[in-house]
């Protein structure tokens, strides 16, 4: 039996607070196209990063042609026969097409120490033929369309093929998300051609595509491979089932406390759009409501959240707070109108790590603690102590630096900050990312407390579970638009499969 061209055995990789890969085993044979699917955070990108040498596995082995190998860097991966096309483009705009394709590998074109542009351009033209691109290799990439640049990115990876004797594996991370239909068909033709010579790993959230192009499909969930199927026998519905599948714990999400929101609209979007991020966004948010937004990476929901909080600006449409049209020029405009954001990157945007718990808590409402130009430290300490006990934050004192608290307690400090600031709309961007189970439950309890007091919450949940369990209503986004709306009353919650259908 032929051994696999590329194999991963029992690989695990952890980061503080999260297990990205959990005992993953996966292989690909020569000339195969293997699809890799899963929700956000399922581990797909992490797996590719291990294969590409960006991450080193904590446990397990990687084997190329049956030989165990430790891949130290993407360049090393390339020299070992593995090339990756990134989701975020790595094409450098100020360099030419040829220079990008051969970046870091210019030695082969040197003549008397200088790069021979004619030889490099000729070689580039050869590679461009493989992706059916007729762009001149001496063109600067800044002058090319996004889609063309994606094709060049692919050509860059494919150039591996003509330079290496051993078998070649190409890793494609969401290659189609920026392409039009015509270009996607082209890409599939290219992959078809490639199958003769190379093996391909294909990640996409568009399941029909994955089934169309792959021989086998792996489904990942929570860092594990949960299913392996032959593509020709599988249906999209089956894939949905495998992708989700955790049980919903009604208690966990405090569904009993889910209240009916009032009819008062606190926030409204009418036809909001932002070039390259989202379009046609219209919805209403009511007092006491939790509005969940579900979507994969690239769906536009993170962009939308940040736009609502004033961090970025829409290109069109209207945003209304309490019935009045607003235009947020910066985050401080939003907070002035009572809209706050709990950001997904807690350590960078949520907290000032060297500041104490008290200092962090009052940061969004400093004027309230100032008298005669001086900060009133006693008032600050009192309020902070009050919230520490209310939210059960585990900290030696209010003067402890916030950076030394655990993730869950840090998040509680961030939430306290916005409560102290008195916001009426709080946008939660992945609020339970990287925190322990006990703290997660505390956060859910807090969300219920807030809505009970009339705050409105927009939730970008970490998992579908969370979005379904916590929300009164759910918007599903895909490729920048709202593709479905669900009511989610307790006892009448939509299933994960129903949501996933509109997400991918």
């Amino acid at each position, binding site marked *: 039996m032929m051994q696999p061209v590329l194999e991963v055995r029992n690989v695990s990789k952890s980061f503080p607070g999260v297990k990205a890969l959990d005992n993953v085993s996966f292989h690909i044979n020569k000339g195969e196209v293997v699809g890799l699917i899963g929700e956000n955070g399922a581990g797909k990108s992490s797996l590719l990063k291990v294969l590409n040498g*960006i991450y080193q596995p904590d446990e397990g082995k990687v084997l190329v042609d049956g030989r165990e190998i430790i891949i130290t*860097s*993407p*360049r090393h991966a*390339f020299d070992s026969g593995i090339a990756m096309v990134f989701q975020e483009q*790595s094409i*450098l*705009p*100020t*360099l030419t097409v040829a*220079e990008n394709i051969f*970046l*870091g*590998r*210019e*030695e082969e074109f*040197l003549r008397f*120490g*200088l*790069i021979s*542009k004619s030889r490099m351009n000729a070689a580039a033209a050869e590679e461009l033929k493989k992706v059916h691109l007729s762009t001149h290799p001496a063109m600067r990439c*800044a*002058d*090319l*369309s*996004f889609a063309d640049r994606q094709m060049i990115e692919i050509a860059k990876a494919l150039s591996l093929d003509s330079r290496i004797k051993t078998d070649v594996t190409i890793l494609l991370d969401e290659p189609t998300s*920026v392409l*039009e239909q015509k270009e996607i068909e082209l890409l599939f033709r290219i992959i078809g051609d490639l199958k003769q010579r190379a093996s391909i790993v294909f990640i996409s959230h568009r399941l029909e595509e994955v089934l169309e192009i792959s021989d086998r499909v792996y489904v990942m969930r929570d860092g594990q491979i949960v299913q392996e199927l032959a593509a020709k026998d599988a249906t999209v519905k089956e894939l949905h089932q495998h992708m989700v599948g955790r049980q919903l714990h009604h208690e966990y999400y405090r569904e009993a406390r889910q209240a009916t929101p009032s009819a008062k609209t606190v926030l409204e979007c009418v036809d909001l759009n932002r*070039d*390259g*991020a*989202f*379009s046609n966004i219209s919805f209403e948010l009511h007092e006491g409501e939790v509005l969940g937004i579900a979507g994969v990476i*690239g769906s*536009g929901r993170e962009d939308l959240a940040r736009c609502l909080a004033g961090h*970025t600006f829409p290109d069109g449409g209207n945003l209304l707070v309490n019935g009045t049209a607003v235009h947020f020029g910066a985050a401080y405009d939003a907070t002035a109108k009572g809209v706050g954001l709990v950001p997904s990157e807690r350590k960078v945007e949520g907290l000032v790590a060297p500041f104490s718990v008290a200092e962090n808590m009052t940061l969004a409402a400093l004027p309230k603690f100032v008298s005669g130009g001086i900060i009133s430290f006693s008032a600050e300490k009192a309020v902070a102590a009050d919230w520490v006990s209310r939210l059960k934050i585990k900290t030696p004192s209010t003067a402890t630096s916030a950076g030394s608290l655990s993730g869950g307690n840090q998040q509680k400090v961030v939430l306290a900050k916005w409560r102290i600031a008195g916001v009426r709309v709080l946008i939660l961007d992945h609020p339970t990312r990287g925190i322990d189970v006990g703290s997660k439950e505390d956060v859910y309890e807090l969300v219920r407390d807030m809505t009970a007091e009339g705050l409105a919450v927009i939730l970008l949940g970490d998992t579908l579970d969370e979005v379904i369990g916590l929300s009164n209503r759910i918007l599903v986004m895909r*490729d*920048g638009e709202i593709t479905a709306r669900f009511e989610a009353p307790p006892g009448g919650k939509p299933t994960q499969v129903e949501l996933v259908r509109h997400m991918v």
Partner: protein
Amino acid sequence: MKPVSVSNGNLLGHWRRWAPVVVLLALCILISLFNGNFLTFGNFIRLLNSAAIPIVLCMGATFIILMGSIDLSIEGVVALTAVIVSLLVINDISPYALSLWAVPIAVAVGGMMGLLNGVLHIKLKTPSFMTTLGVGFAGVGVATTILGGTTVRISDQTFRFLSLGRVLEIPMAVWIAAVAVAVAYVIQERTRLGRWLYAIGTDEMTARHAGIPIERTRILIFGIAGLFYGLGGVLAAAQFGQGHALISQGRLFTTITAVVVGGTALSGGVGSVINSVIGVFIVVVLANGLVLMGVEPYVQQGVQGLLIIAAVALALDRSRLDVVK
């Protein structure tokens, strides 16, 4: 979601790339309207001469700024190399008479100071503006110490020919500067180092993934820049016929102004040595124009300061919402 623009305002779009040339032409036209003397051959030679040394210095500075770093040591290197070259040719203090052999020695000293900049920056992992600030000050200090505060006068006429001599009516300094530009251009366009500069300045992570030796490249580029500054110091000594630390005063400012005004982005990855040549001419023409219009010389620096602010503000990349410190 399909991203929108083709070449987004992220980079110098087509019209922006030509802006420096347009500015230069506009300036020339404006000034010649004011004062006919601007368009004479004699003035033209004067302009070229004023531009020679700044152009040489800008070649080095451009490389460093393309990489996303900054070099505040220019004055220190120029001072030290000017003093050293002055002491190595026939002069009134030291016994050496190395004639033109002093030139490669002084240039090499410049290169070594550049390497020092690079090594300190990389090994100590300190930002380039700090390391070059320190090394620059140290350089001026060494230059002044060697001379003990006096000036050394050069009497070697062969050496002075490098700046004052004329070939085909054009001063030697200008020819040397032209060669410097050619060499810099070749380095920029045709060597791996030059191409890697752009990669590192645009996206260091991608450059690293592609296997580009980042640390080595950074150090080498600082060294190469030092070579150019050294050449600038030699030319300065040849021009003034003396060596002293003050010979370099004000040059940092002019160099940075020229690079920025010429269109090379401070954030790195965008621009070229040719841009900087245009930038030097903008600065030199403006200075020349101010003189022709009878404005006091001390206004120069003020104008340059405003120029820098205007140039950077106009090249403003609004889509890069990075934190600016």
